[in-house]
């Protein structure tokens, strides 16, 4: 056997294995003749269009992708293991670091899960504040997606507009929590701090700028012939396959399925807000673009409603055994000092049980499964992250398309590797 034949034979043997893999793609017999022309290419883990450290092993015939195998785990930091070693309140900063583009949604999901186990009632003002901040977070996350995915395809200008606007949102977060990105602002029992003075005018001003910025990008892209050529009819997968593979969020809505945890299982008084769940049926990269653009407008709508109707009252629950007391009370009242000491040193105990809490993160269904064994440390925290579920479909979605289109498809999936690997 010559050297070339041996190489072909070994590739063939590899494919016998690969055909068994349902996440991979079967190679049709007529394509096997081109085996000798095949090239295996590593995209990543250090490739700009993978937005992090994702490695995709591509099997190419010329420029056509025959088979794509995503490899994850390069950003695995053991967050779930670290959660088990900490007290309930110490887990909140870890949830920030899972999906670093939508940390408030992660905070909210964890807080809701723990509150359900504790049976805590959250006052309306804190709930509305959570909704407003989560929608601002959705806006900032979608702006990052818009800028980077447009830049991947070659449109440079939206990147500057979106990052200009996102910076204003991050300044709001800094105003609230002292941190731009890792806010840890939503905690079990309410909010971390009292909302700062002057937040109302600041948010109102930023929101007015923001909708202008979104429309600017809309004018740049929506009817742009190059954008249309690059995105229309690319990255299509049948709807039942998408559901089977575990895809959630805007990708599913762009395929015509009206699913949104904010409507289906309302939490934090989302049912009091008036907003639409945008859907499209084209199921390509362009449809996902349209859905996310519309979602941003809906988020602006929700933030405006929250600004107009923000209830007054306490910003956290009345639960002295869970929440740290006021600094002033601590200096004057013995009980507050005792509670402070106990919460800081021992933490608070959560009744034994388990809960699976779902919220709608900018990327799809975000679920926290928290198991309590009755102590002050969670027994297990599982994060059902939307990026993990969505990324699983990458292999099926890249099959048979051009290498340059793969960048557009990956951009439209909007995954965050910190969210995937945890």
């Amino acid at each position: 056997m010559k050297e070339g034949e041996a190489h072909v034979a070994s590739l063939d043997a590899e494919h016998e294995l690969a055909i068994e893999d349902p996440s991979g793609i079967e190679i049709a017999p007529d394509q096997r003749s081109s085996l000798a022309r095949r090239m295996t290419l590593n995209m990543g883990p250090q490739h700009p269009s993978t937005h992090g450290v994702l490695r995709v092993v591509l099997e190419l015939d010329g420029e056509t992708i025959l088979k794509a195998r995503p490899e994850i785990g390069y950003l695995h930091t053991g967050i779930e293991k670290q959660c088990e070693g900490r007290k309930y309140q110490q887990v909140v900063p870890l949830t920030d670091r899972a999906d670093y583009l939508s940390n408030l949604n992660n905070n909210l999901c964890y807080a809701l899960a723990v509150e359900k186990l504790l049976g805590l009632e959250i006052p309306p003002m804190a709930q509305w504040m959570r909704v407003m901040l989560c929608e601002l977070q959705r806006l900032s996350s979608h702006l990052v997606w818009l800028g980077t995915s447009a830049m991947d395809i070659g449109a440079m200008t939206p990147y500057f507009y979106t990052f200009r606007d996102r910076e204003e949102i991050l300044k709001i977060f800094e105003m609230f929590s002292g941190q731009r990105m890792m806010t840890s602002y939503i905690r079990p029992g309410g909010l971390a701090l009292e909302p700062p003075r002057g937040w109302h005018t600041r948010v109102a001003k930023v929101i007015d700028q923001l909708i202008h910025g979104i429309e600017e990008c809309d004018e740049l892209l929506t009817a742009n012939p190059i954008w249309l050529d690059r995105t229309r009819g690319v990255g299509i997968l049948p709807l039942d396959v998408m559901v089977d593979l575990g895809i959630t969020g805007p990708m599913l809505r762009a395929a015509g399925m009206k699913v949104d945890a904010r409507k289906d299982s309302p939490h934090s008084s989302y049912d009091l807000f008036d907003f639409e769940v945008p859907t499209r049926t084209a199921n390509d990269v362009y449809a996902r673009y349209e859905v996310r653009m519309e979602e941003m407008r809906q988020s602006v709508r929700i933030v405006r409603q929250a600004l107009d109707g923000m209830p007054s009252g306490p910003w956290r629950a009345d639960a002295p055994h869970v929440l740290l007391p006021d600094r002033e009370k601590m200096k004057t009242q013995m009980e507050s000092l005792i509670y402070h000491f106990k919460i800081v040193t021992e933490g608070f105990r959560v009744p034994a049980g388990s809960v699976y809490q779902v919220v709608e993160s900018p990327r799809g269904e975000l679920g926290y499964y928290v198991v309590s064994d009755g102590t002050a440390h969670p027994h297990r925290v599982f994060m059902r992250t939307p990026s993990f579920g969505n990324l699983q479909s990458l292999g099926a979605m890249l099959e048979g398309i051009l290498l340059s289109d793969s960048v557009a498809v990956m951009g439209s999936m909007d995954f965050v590797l910190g969210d995937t690997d945890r």
Partner: protein
Amino acid sequence: VLPEAIAQNPIAITVDQEFPSSIVDVATAVDGPVWFVAREHIANVCRVLKETGGFEQLSGVTGVDWWPSEPRFEVMYFLHSFRHNARLRLSVRLQENEELDSVVRVWRGANWYEREVFDLFGVRFNGHPNLERIMMPADWEGHPLRKDYPVHGHRYSYQNE
């Protein structure tokens, strides 16, 4: 013989007719129902739930380690039905050396979740097409989410490629 809480549930009755005594117990958690399924029946129950119960999507699979109590592991399946806007949790308890049937043939999306449970807990899934580590490097020793695996400490590993 179905547990009393779901004796009137038509989906549970269908499951029980096809696979008798596959549902061992039922509990109501704060967020909804949990069905405890016999270990050897999990793939069958999942198939019935998908085909006649309307649970189109598997949201996730994860494990819980109850070491040192026995049986040690609990594997959780999170099912989601868009049609009925319903969620259901399935729980399977198993000993350290026992294996589970893979549900990849029911939902393709189970692939990575089962790999993750194998990687982090060391639970093996029968009939999984590609049961390899997914988070940790391929030559890693041990399963990090087990309770007897330390949180702190250093171990260096460089994959030989």
